[in-house]
């Protein structure tokens, strides 16, 4: 347990230090959300209708942004070798790295989403819905991304491969995340079903992600 806690604290500390990726995600999120209204023009009704979708899309891309470095950095400096040699099971170590990534990338997005919702003319109910669905859905994005991050370590220079591998797998999360947040605005009765499926996708990815990523890392040994 001490080993895993140490790993969690180290990854969080690395992310918030100079050169870490913690603020990159939020910054990218801000850029996308700030640019979209300019592209769409001054139609406030359109903006508030597609606002949740834009927030979700921006969150998806922001999560993928720093993901390829999750294991690659540890691979390059030899830390991954030592993590493999640790007494902590690799699956748990991988999961802990995923948690650290979510805390420093996904969680800030959830916190920032209501503020950025203002840019998109969302009302209070829509803010809350988007923030709630992001809270439930962004862990799935990170943990699905773990698989791609681990695979791109095995394949040298796999950085560009990561979005290609991971994006198709995240599409269900995107669909049900947006569906749930739009349902909350248009028809609160229909919120439950897509939100439950979103939560189920997250729970599945919390299990499948670490196991697949650990298997990919072991296969990539050389």
């Amino acid at each position, binding site marked *: 347990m*001490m*080993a895993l806690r140490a790993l969690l604290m*180290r990854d969080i500390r*690395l992310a918030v230090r100079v050169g870490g990726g913690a603020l990159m995600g939020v910054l990218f999120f801000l850029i996308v959300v700030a640019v979209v209204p300019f592209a769409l023009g001054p139609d406030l009704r359109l903006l508030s209708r597609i606002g949740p979708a834009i927030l979700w899309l921006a969150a998806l891309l922001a999560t993928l942004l720093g993901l390829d470095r999750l294991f690659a950095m540890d691979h390059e400096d030899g830390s991954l*070798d030592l993590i493999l040699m640790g007494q902590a099971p690799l699956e748990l170590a991988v999961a802990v790295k995923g948690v650290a990534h979510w805390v420093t990338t996904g969680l800030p997005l959830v916190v920032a989403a209501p503020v950025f919702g203002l840019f998109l003319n969302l009302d209070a109910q829509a803010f809350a819905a988007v923030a709630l669905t992001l809270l439930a859905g962004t862990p799935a994005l990170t943990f699905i991304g773990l698989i791609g991050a681990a695979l791109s370590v095995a394949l040298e220079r796999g950085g560009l491969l990561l979005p290609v591998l991971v994006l198709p797998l995240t599409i269900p999360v995107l669909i049900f995340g947006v569906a749930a947040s739009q349902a909350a605005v248009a028809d609160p009765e229909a919120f439950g079903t897509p939100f439950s499926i979103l939560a189920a996708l997250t729970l599945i990815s919390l299990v499948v992600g670490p196991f697949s990523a650990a298997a990919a890392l072991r296969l990539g040994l050389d």
Partner: protein
Amino acid sequence: MRLKVTGLACRRGQKAIFSGISFALSGGEALLLLGPNGAGKSSLLRIMAGLLRPVAGQIALEGADHDGPIAEQAHYLGHQDALKPSLSVVENLRFWTQFLGEGPGRAPLEALETVGLIELADLPAGYLSAGQRRRLSLARLVCAPRPVWLLDEPSAALDVNGQQRLSRVMHAHLGTGGIILAATHAPLGLGQAQVLRLGSADPADSLPGGPAVAHAP
């Protein structure tokens, strides 16, 4: 404690690097791996560390304090230092101590004293020179006790003082019944060590002033 390796073979891509490597070491013994570049010294150490799969052969560690694969009983000091430039020297060391060890090792600050880095404890590791990074990696081995040390050119980039400290640390480890496997091109000051020669038996790369070659695969 006894480390026994039988019939180990390694292949990288299409090329067979070595085969039929066998040796046995008891607690307190060291083995030097000698051989030209590309002979498979690093590969052998990575196989021992569980980081590379052998084509054939067995590795067994008997009588260690913990059960479990040898990877969890061994320290691996490779060419990469596993240090994060944005963490301070002592933060790097404290992390690896907590991650790798659970037994009663030396306190991180004490280990930094041993390798001569105590004045730099709060400096970000990114500012360290190659030799200082090496010393910091060495401190990791002292902090988290593990019975088998796998050292890949441990004296690389170390100055004379650093090499003396390395030799002292290695002797202390052997003195407590530990096992050391070291790939090296330079004498490490382990007078009584066994020698395993990999690759071509070229007398030109025997160690200057080192032990005589006594054992071949």
